[in-house]
């Protein structure tokens, strides 16, 4: 499932990141934020009263805000870490 579809506050792991969907600069920043295959992730808040706003999520120990187009490039999987 994509990170955009992940229910709020359900711990998950990143399965795959489609770097081709992200601009070079956004990809680099996400990598610096600690996003990588296998990292733990949890969607915390969906922003936006009018229309679809950004998503706040916890990645490792950090909370980051990203837009839906970034989150759509990230495939996640719920379940135990060992399956990674």
């Amino acid at each position: 499932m994509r990170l955009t579809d992940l229910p709020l506050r359900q711990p998950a792991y990143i399965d795959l990141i489609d770097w081709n969907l992200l601009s070079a600069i956004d990809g680099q920043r996400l990598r610096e934020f600690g996003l990588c295959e296998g990292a733990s992730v949890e969607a915390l808040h969906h922003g936006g009263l009018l229309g679809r706003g950004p998503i706040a999520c916890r990645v490792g120990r950090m909370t980051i805000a990203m837009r839906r187009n970034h989150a759509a490039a990230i495939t996640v999987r719920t379940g135990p870490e060992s399956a990674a």
Partner: protein
Amino acid sequence: MSALPLIALVGNPNAGKSALFNALTGARQKLGNYPGVTVERKAGRLSLSDGRPIELVDLPGTYSLSPASPDEQVTRDVVMGRQTGEKRPDALVIVVDAANLDNHLRFALELIALGLPTVVALNMVDLATRDGLELDAAILSRELGVPVISTVAVRKRGLDHLRQELEGLLNGAPPAYPAGPERDFDAMRSEARRIARAAIVRETPSRRLTALVDRVALHPVLGLALLLGLLFVMFQAVYAWSEAPIAMIEGVAEAAAALARDALPDGIIRSFLVDGVINGVGSVVVFLPQILILFFFILMLEATGYMVRAAFLMDGIMAKVGLSGRAFIPLLSSFACAIPGIMATRTIADPRDRLTTILIAPLMTCSARLPVYAVIIGAFIPARDIYAFGGGYGIGLQGFVLFCLYLAGIVGAMLVAMVLRLTVTKGASGGFLMEMPKYQWPRPQDILLGLWQRAIIFLKRAGTIIFTSTVILWLLLSFPRVPDGDPTSQVDHSIAGRIASGLNVVLEPIGFNRDISLALIPAMAAREVAVSALATVYSIDAGDDEAALEQSLGERLKGQWPLPTALAFLAWFIFAPQCISTIAVTRRETNGWKWPMFMVFYLFALAYVAAGVTYWTATAAGL
């Protein structure tokens, strides 16, 4: 460049770097700029135990040595010794957030590999403990190969220990950590993770304060209500809290004017001192309390970590006008002053996003407009409550009008941004990617230091730009002198009066009188000069009329201007780009005259239309 040993503080954003810098250097700081770029250079002095001074420089926070924005580039260039105007640091203090080791250690490894003498400050250990994390600095030090000191900058913990380590590094101990082999990003990340896991002694999941607060602060409805509430309180406070200190400053200025009037014989020197210096500069300095209250709120929002939440809430709306939530932060800073606001756009990576933000930043109601708004609102808007809560508390009409003026600027900016993104800055919008720091209660000293630096900047402006333009205006107003027995007033007869009469042909249709035209010319230097200019005009106009001299500027305006004119004057200042420094910083940030000229033209056009529509509507409504 100084010959002192140079130590650079470097680390991720939100590692508490600036708090550590403040704790180490206290008030002994110097703000400047790196040559050629508009990145602020923050440096301070620090004394070692033997009294030897060293210079400490606080580098912009960045996530890696691959910069994405101009300020991150400065950090890379300084630590690599490539930045002009800065020598290569003799040592580095790498600041890492104890609660975010995996991530911050990756950048730390990148920095340690540079081979400079290094010490790591394991900062904010108290917050890590709050989150149920227990760390072993000794293990960390062994794994990294450099000294690691636990610090809590906001509580001044670990600072002596850090100073001792720095002393050791500078006392010629050879760097025990030669430049390591080049490792790629992924290798450093796994290494950082391994070290972080080794250093974490215990981890107990605990209720995290930040997560709890964010449930409200980031809620689509509650969060937005909270943000609007905060902004509303901020603008009410600007009025409510400032009454007493303003009365005090006014008292001092009046006493000084009375003293000068009694001590000096009537003549050109007395007129210069009373009309030009005391009335002119005094009428601007009187707004220092309001400006400081505004800065207090902005500094608090930044230091507590709330500002990024505001950006998150606003991203949906900002996206609609083609901007990102990130633009909200420079725009909110622009409420204090457009100059730091425009400089803060450097953190926006997308060039079109950045240009649009720069072009609309002057529409945010900066603190220099406050003197203008305050004097007009004070004179023309009755001080009554539009809603009373009882017990002496209520929503004041004056504060409400001020809120509306701010709102008009914001709505105007959004509309302009939308038009710009469809025309001159057309193209795909950049993204919105931000780290959300933990909430933190700031150290009062850090806020006070920030306020102190703003106060000095404002008073320097009052002493230079505002003083100079007031004096020039006084000269132009005072000469040539009206011959004795001539019935024309001094203002009409003066050079300035004649220039203003010419300009007034253009401004009369929007309800502006000659005195306003006169005040607008020197106000090109800075908006608040309009107030000091009006004070000087009416002070000279009053001449020796004792009754008129007793009146405050507000009382004089009320007697001379019809209400529609006053309202049109307010509407003009929502848009008018009357600030030389903003134009100059825009030229510097956009590398040329094209964009600042465009900005000046479109803002004056909007100001003219807004003032005109206001005047005509108010007149038609019979106000």
